[in-house]
């Protein structure tokens, strides 16, 4: 980031400031900074800078050149782009919704960087239910994963049932093939205590954990954990604060999706549903590729909403589509070189009595570190505001926002149906699933529509959703949120 303040910073304005605002800011500042009034040393230069800033920004063509130059000369590694559902905020006497799409991409100056060095741990459930094809597939996928890794990657492997064993302690292994025999020896037996495995895995990561590495735990399980969920969530928080992310792969239908979603969300990762064991290898392969695309880690959003504004919801659209929970510090995960980080925020804006020209929505920062330059914590300011005024009736929100919301709406519908189902509201849940099926059909998702319809009927008969159907709908709807381009990449 350049040390010289930009013209916008001199005038104290956002990049999208209107002519009116530029004129107003200049008038106010020049009253205070004019050398006739301000006698402090350097007042003259300060005023000349202000004048230069005003004269550049007030002239549309000079401003355009200047904006272009700002982007060109910027040495910021991450570029920010902000889209709003409305160009202006209508002055209403009732609450209204405003959607904001935040998009972060790697500046082209940094895009050609080499793959980062990984510090990863595979944490594998070897409980009795994994016996047979499941464990065999997991072993094969783990071997593939390790084979692909680079010589300087730090790797470790932990298995767990009701206790954990370190199969491969964390270090750099010169010969990855020699490790395969140890993986083949893994046997299934015992129960599922996820905390045991996570704790042992986290410890392995911590031996070598540092800011220059991509520190990552991949948890593979097929079961429910009992009694230790709070300990797991606590561990996830510790992991997040040390920049260790967790990805969970749930095999079959007997694992607790709400728990794993919660866990991985805290730790900046994501949960994947594996209905067929054959999908596991493909998913692990994708995961490996995306870890090698990591550019920024410990990406946290700190956001404070303005008075009478509330955050109604927050969703990560890509690289991994998932709902996020609003908190003081939201773990956004990572920024990849080949996929932007895109976030959709829903704000509920209550009316206020004041007559404002521009209304603040929220302020904060996105903080992140680059493993390639671990010494610095980068802070990208997030300032969200809108000019108050009436809208052109024909105005359409940006395509990105419509696209994202189409699928978020479906995701929210299935969440509601699940809540209704577990509360015993059979009719509501059933008709909601039918409506969901109609929407799936209208976007061409025939199989999903079929699943939703089957579940709508099933709940009428058994008062319950099937665990497979429930998970299939949830995770498929979630992956619909990915923008089309990203989806094509994933399926290719």
């Amino acid at each position, binding site marked *: 980031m350049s040390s010289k303040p930009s013209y916008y910073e001199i005038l104290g304005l956002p990049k999208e400031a209107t002519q009116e605002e530029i004129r107003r800011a200049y008038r106010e500042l020049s009253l205070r900074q004019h050398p006739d009034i301000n006698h402090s040393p350097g007042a003259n230069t300060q005023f000349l800078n202000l004048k230069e800033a005003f004269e550049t920004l007030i002239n549309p063509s000079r401003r355009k050149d200047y904006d272009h130059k700002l982007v060109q000369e910027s040495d910021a590694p991450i570029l920010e782009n902000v889209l709003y559902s409305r160009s202006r905020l209508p002055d209403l006497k009732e609450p209204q919704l405003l*959607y904001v799409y935040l998009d972060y991409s790697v500046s082209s100056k940094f895009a050609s960087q080499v793959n980062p060095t990984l510090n990863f741990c595979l944490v594998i459930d070897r409980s009795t239910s994994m016996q047979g094809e499941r464990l065999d597939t997991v072993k094969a996928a783990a071997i593939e994963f390790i084979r692909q890794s680079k010589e300087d990657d730090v790797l470790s492997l932990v298995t767990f049932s009701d206790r954990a064993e370190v199969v491969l302690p964390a270090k750099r292994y010169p010969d990855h093939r020699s490790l395969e025999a140890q993986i083949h020896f893994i046997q299934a037996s015992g129960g599922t205590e996820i905390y045991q495995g996570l704790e042992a895995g986290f410890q392995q990561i911590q031996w070598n954990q540092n800011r220059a590495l991509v520190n990552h735990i991949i948890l593979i399980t097929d079961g429910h954990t009992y009694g230790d969920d709070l300990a797991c969530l606590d561990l996830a928080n510790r992991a997040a604060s040390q920049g260790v992310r967790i990805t969970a792969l749930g095999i079959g239908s007997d694992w607790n999706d709400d728990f794993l979603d919660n866990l991985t969300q805290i730790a900046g990762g994501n949960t994947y549903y594996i209905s067929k064991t054959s999908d596991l290898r493909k998913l692990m392969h994708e995961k490996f590729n995306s870890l090698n695309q990591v550019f920024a880690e410990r990406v946290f959003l700190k956001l404070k909403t303005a008075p009478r504004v509330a955050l109604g919801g927050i969703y990560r659209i890509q690289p991994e589509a998932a709902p996020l929970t609003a908190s003081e510090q939201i773990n956004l995960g990572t920024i990849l070189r080949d996929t932007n980080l895109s976030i959709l925020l829903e704000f509920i804006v209550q009316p206020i009595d004041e007559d404002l020209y521009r209304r603040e929505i929220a302020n904060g920062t996105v903080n992140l570190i680059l493993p390639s330059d671990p010494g610095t914590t980068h802070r990208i300011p997030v300032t969200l505001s809108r000019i108050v005024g009436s809208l052109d009736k024909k105005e359409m*929100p940006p395509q990105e926002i419509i696209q994202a919301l189409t699928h978020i709406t479906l995701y929210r519908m299935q969440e509601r149906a699940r809540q209704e189902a577990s509360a015993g509201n059979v009719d509501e849940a059933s008709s909601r699933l039918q409506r969901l099926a*109609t*929407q799936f059909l209208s976007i061409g998702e025939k199989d999903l529509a079929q699943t939703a319809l089957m579940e709508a009927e099933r709940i009428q008969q058994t008062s319950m959703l099937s665990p497979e159907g429930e998970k299939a709908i949830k995770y498929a709807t979630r992956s619909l949120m990915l923008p089309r381009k990203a989806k094509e990449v994933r399926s290719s």
Partner: protein
Amino acid sequence: MITCPHCGNKELEGALFCKECGSQLLIESEEKKTSRIDVNSEAGLYPTSRQPLYSSGLGYAPSSDALVTLHLSGLDVYIPIMEEGEVIIGRSSEGQPMIPDIDLGKYKAFQSGVSRMHAAIRLFGNQILISDLGSSNGTSVNETKLEPYSPHPLKNGDVITLGRMRIEVITKDMKPRTNSMEV
């Protein structure tokens, strides 16, 4: 507040989608009136009920309020579409919980090869679009077969074929039976 034209649910100003039924609300923002969709006694029924949204049993002439009227060729049946938005054409069948907005079940739709969810018509400003919903026997406009899920514009006088069922499109302000004019 915005009222969802499909299910009557109330959403906050600025909402883009209905939380209840998932429909897009954008196109409705132009006019604030929320009139009922049907002209018949079945008015007020929501798409989720086990009744089709568009009653199509009466052989009434095209309503002048309709934005678009679908005329089933060879039958004296006119189905009006009164509001902007999306409607799904198909046929209901027993034991199936979903009912399309326009149910052609009564007109030998099954024998004519109409799928349960055959095609969707979308009205948006001055545009009318039809997309095939991956139906078994396909959808054609003026004998040109459509790719599934890719919207195709419709104009007055176009003939849609669902399976073997032919339907003439009559748009607002146009007299029925005017023959298609190529533009």
